[in-house]
C-alpha cells in the first residue's frame, strides 16, 4: 500500500484543552500564591479526597508523559542514571528523579510537594519511586495498598482498601490540620463521576465508523480526567469536547478523511513518537480507534452515588490491578466493540505490570476474534529503547497482512 495523504481534522476544543492545562500547571507550580498545598500523587491514586480538602495534585507520571512528548526525557533519565539509578528502571520514575535532581524539564523546577500519595494499583514501581522522593524531599507519604486481583475480589480485600481510605482521610486531616468535609467530598465525588461518565461516552463515540476521536487524540485529551478529576473544570471541558465529537458523529465525519483499517492500541503510548506513528498509520489509511490505556480512566466499577467505599472498590479494580483473564476479555471487547481489524501492543520495557502477559493476550485475542495482533518494542518516554524504522517496517507489514486478510 502506497503512502497517501490523509488529512486530519483538528479538534476545536484543543484550544480550550491547552488553556485548561496551562492554568492547571500554573496553579500547581505557584500553589502558594493561591494558598494551596500540593500533593504528588500516582496516576491510580484517589485524587477526589485531595480536591475535597483543597489540595492541588501533581502527577509525576503525567509530567513524565509531558517530558516524553517534548523529547526532554532522555537527558533527565541520564541525570538519574548518573546518580546511580539503573537504565532498566521505569523511565517515568527516572524522568521524575532526574527533574528533581536537575530542576530541568518543561516546567523547570517541579512544584515542591507538602506530602505524597502513592497507590500500588498501577504497579509496584511507584512504591519504590515514592520512597525515593519522600527521602529526597523530606516529606511524608501516604501509601494505599490495593492487593492485585488475579481472579475474584474477596470481601476482606475490599475491607482492607476501605479501611485504608479512612486512614487516608485521617492522614489528610493531620497534614492539613482541618477536618474532612463529607459534604465537600460528596460534591467533588459527584463531579468526578460525571467526568468519568463523560470521558467514557467520549471515547466510546469512536465505536462509530469512521472514528471521530481516535486513540492518538484520546492520549492528549485524557490529561484532565487524570489531573482534574473531581473539578468543575474537567466536567466543563469534557462537556464541550463531547459536544464537538458528537457533532462529528452526526455528520458522519471521522478524525481522518480516510479510514480503511481500524486498530486497537494496548499499553501506554510511545509519547515521543505519537505524532510520527499517527502520521505513519493514517498515511496508510489506518486509525487507532480505541485503546486500553485511556479507557482505564472510564472506571467500570464506579457506579451509583459517590462514597468512600465506592472509591475504594473502583481504585482496587482498575485495569492494571486485574489479572490476565480480565485483560484478555477487555481486549476482546475492545476489538469487537470498536469493529477493529487488528490490534497493536506496545511491549513497554518501562512498564512490567502492563507488558508481562501481552504475548498470551495477543494469542488469545486473535484466537477469539480472528483479528491479528502486532507487538512492537519500545519505552513510554525513553527514546533510547526505540528503533522507529524497525517499528515502521513491522507496522507496514502488519497492515499489509490485514489488507490481504480483509480482501480474501
Amino acid at each position: 500500500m502506497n503512502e497517501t495523504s490523509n488529512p486530519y481534522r483538528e479538534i476545536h476544543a484543543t484550544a480550550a484543552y491547552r488553556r485548561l492545562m496551562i492554568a492547571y500547571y500554573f496553579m500547581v507550580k505557584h500553589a502558594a500564591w493561591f494558598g494551596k498545598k500540593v500533593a504528588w500523587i500516582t496516576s491510580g491514586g484517589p485524587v477526589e479526597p485531595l480536591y475535597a480538602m483543597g489540595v492541588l495534585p501533581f502527577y509525576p507520571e503525567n509530567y513524565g508523559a509531558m517530558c516524553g512528548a517534548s523529547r526532554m526525557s532522555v537527558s533527565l533519565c541520564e541525570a538519574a542514571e548518573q546518580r546511580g539509578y539503573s537504565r532498566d528502571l521505569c523511565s517515568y520514575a527516572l524522568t521524575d528523579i532526574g527533574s528533581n535532581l536537575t530542576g530541568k524539564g518543561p516546567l523547570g523546577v517541579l512544584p515542591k510537594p507538602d506530602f505524597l500519595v502513592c497507590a500500588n494499583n498501577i504497579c509496584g514501581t511507584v512504591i519504590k519511586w515514592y520512597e525515593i522522593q519522600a527521602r529526597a524531599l523530606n516529606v511524608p507519604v501516604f501509601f494505599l495498598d490495593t492487593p492485585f486481583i488475579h481472579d475474584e475480589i474477596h470481601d476482606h480485600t475490599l475491607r482492607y482498601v476501605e479501611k485504608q481510605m479512612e486512614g487516608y482521610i485521617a492522614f489528610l486531616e493531620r497534614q492539613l490540620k482541618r477536618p474532612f468535609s463529607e459534604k465537600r467530598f460528596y460534591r467533588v465525588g459527584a463531579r468526578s463521576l460525571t467526568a468519568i461518565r463523560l470521558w467514557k461516552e467520549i471515547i466510546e463515540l469512536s465505536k462509530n465508523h469512521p472514528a471521530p476521536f481516535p486513540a492518538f487524540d484520546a492520549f492528549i485529551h485524557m490529561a484532565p480526567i487524570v489531573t482534574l478529576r473531581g473539578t468543575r473544570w474537567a466536567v466543563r471541558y469534557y462537556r464541550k469536547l463531547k459536544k464537538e465529537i458528537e457533532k462529528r458523529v452526526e455528520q458522519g465525519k471521522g478524525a481522518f478523511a480516510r479510514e480503511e483499517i481500524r486498530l486497537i492500541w494496548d499499553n501506554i503510548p510511545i509519547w515521543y513518537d505519537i505524532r510520527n506513528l499517527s502520521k505513519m498509520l493514517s498515511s496508510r489509511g489506518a486509525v487507532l480507534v480505541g485503546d486500553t490505556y485511556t479507557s482505564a480512566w472510564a472506571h467500570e466499577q464506579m457506579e451509583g452515588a459517590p462514597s468512600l467505599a465506592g472509591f475504594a472498590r473502583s481504585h482496587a479494580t482498575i485495569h492494571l490491578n486485574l489479572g490476565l483473564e480480565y485483560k484478555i476479555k477487555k481486549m476482546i471487547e475492545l476489538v469487537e466493540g470498536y469493529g477493529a481489524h487488528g490490534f497493536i501492543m506496545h511491549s513497554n520495557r518501562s512498564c512490567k505490570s502492563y507488558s508481562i502477559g501481552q504475548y498470551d493476550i495477543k494469542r488469545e485475542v486473535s484466537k477469539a476474534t480472528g483479528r491479528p495482533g502486532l507487538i512492537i518494542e519500545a519505552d513510554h518516554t525513553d527514546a533510547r529503547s526505540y528503533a522507529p524504522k524497525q517499528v515502521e517496517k513491522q507496522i507496514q507489514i502488519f497492515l499489509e497482512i490485514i489488507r490481504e486478510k480483509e480482501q480474501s
Partner: protein
Amino acid sequence: MTKQTSPNNIRKEIEDITSRSYRDIASVLPKDRMPIGFFCPLVPEELIHAAGALPFRLMGTSVPITHAQAHLPPYCCHLVKASLESLLQGELHFLRGIVFCQTCDSMQGLSDIWARQGIVPSQFNLMIPTHLDSEHARPYLRAEMERFKYFLESNVGKISLRKLKDSIRLFNHIRERLSEIYSLRRTLSARIPGAYFARIIRAGYWMDRIRYLELLEGLVDSLPKQTEGSDSLIPIYLTGNMAHADTYFSLIEDAGAIVVRDDLCSGARTFRLMVAEDRDPLEALTERYFQSFFCPTKYLGPQAHRDILLQEVADSKAQGVIFLLYKYCEACFFDYPDLKSALEAKGISTLLLEVEDPVQSKEQLKIRIQAFVEMLSPL
C-alpha cells in the same frame, strides 16, 4: 553422631540432592509428601508442611531459555524466566501445586501466565499485603492465611492444631541451626567452603525438612567450638535478592574474603521469620511478617531498608558490602543508590554485581570481586 550424620555423609547427601536437575530431583523426594512449589520466603512453608506436603522452593536454576520467550518479554529477571522455562520444558511435572505471593510486578505477571499453562494441577495466589506497617494489614493477612489454609486442606490434607504447632517448631529449629552455622562459618570457613554452604542452604528448600534438621544438627555437632584462624579473610556482607548459587560464594572466598552475613531472600533474611510458639499458630504466622521481616518489595516506610541494612552491616562487622542483584529487579535497583550512599557515608565500601543466569559471566564477576577484595585488604 550417627553414621548417617557423619560429616562425610551429610556432605554427600546435600551434594547429591543439590546436584540434580529439577527433573531428576523428583525420584529422591519423600514419597509420602506431595511437593508444592513456591518462590518466596513470604509463603509460610509451615502451613504447607502441616498439611502433609513438601514445600519445594523454585530458585532459578541455570537453564537455557528457549521456550519462555513465547510468553515473557526480555526485561524479566532470571528467576522469572528460568522458572517458566523449567515449567515449559517439563522439568516441574512432579509438582502437585504451586503458590505465588504478591511481591513484584514480574512475579504477579508470571503467576497468571503459569496458571494458563495448566501443567501444575493446583495454584494459589497468597496476597501478602505490601503495606506491612499498616494496622489494617493484619486482619487482611489473617484472612489470607485462612484462605491459604482452606486451599491446602482442600488440595492436600487437614491441618490440625498439633500438626501446625509441630511444623512451626520444626522450621524454627531449622532457622536456629542455620543461624548457628552462619556464626560458626565466620571462623571455620575451611570446613564449610562457600560453594558447600550455598548447597546447604539450597538443600533446605528441597529435601524432607525433618531429615534436613538432622543433617544441620549433625553438622553443628561436628564443628569445633573454637576458631581455626580464618581472621585473614576480609569480612563481607552480601545483600540482594539472589537465591543461593555456588558460584558467588566461592568467587568471594577465592578472592580472600568471606561472607559473614547476608540479606539474601534465601539466606539470613529468613531468620527474621521465627514464629512465636506460645500463641495461636495462625495468628503467630500472620504476626511474624509485622515484626522484623523486610523484603524490598514491601513497604515499611521510606527509611526502613536503609536503617535495617546499616544496622545489620554494623552488627556483622563487615568491611565491605556486595550488592548481588538480579538484572531487572526494580525493587532492589530503586533502593540501590541511596543504600550505597548511606553505606559509603559510614566508610563501608560497596560493589554492585548485576547478574542473570548464575553460570554466565563468571570470569567477569571474578575479576570485579578480586579487585574489590584487594581494595579492602590491608597493604
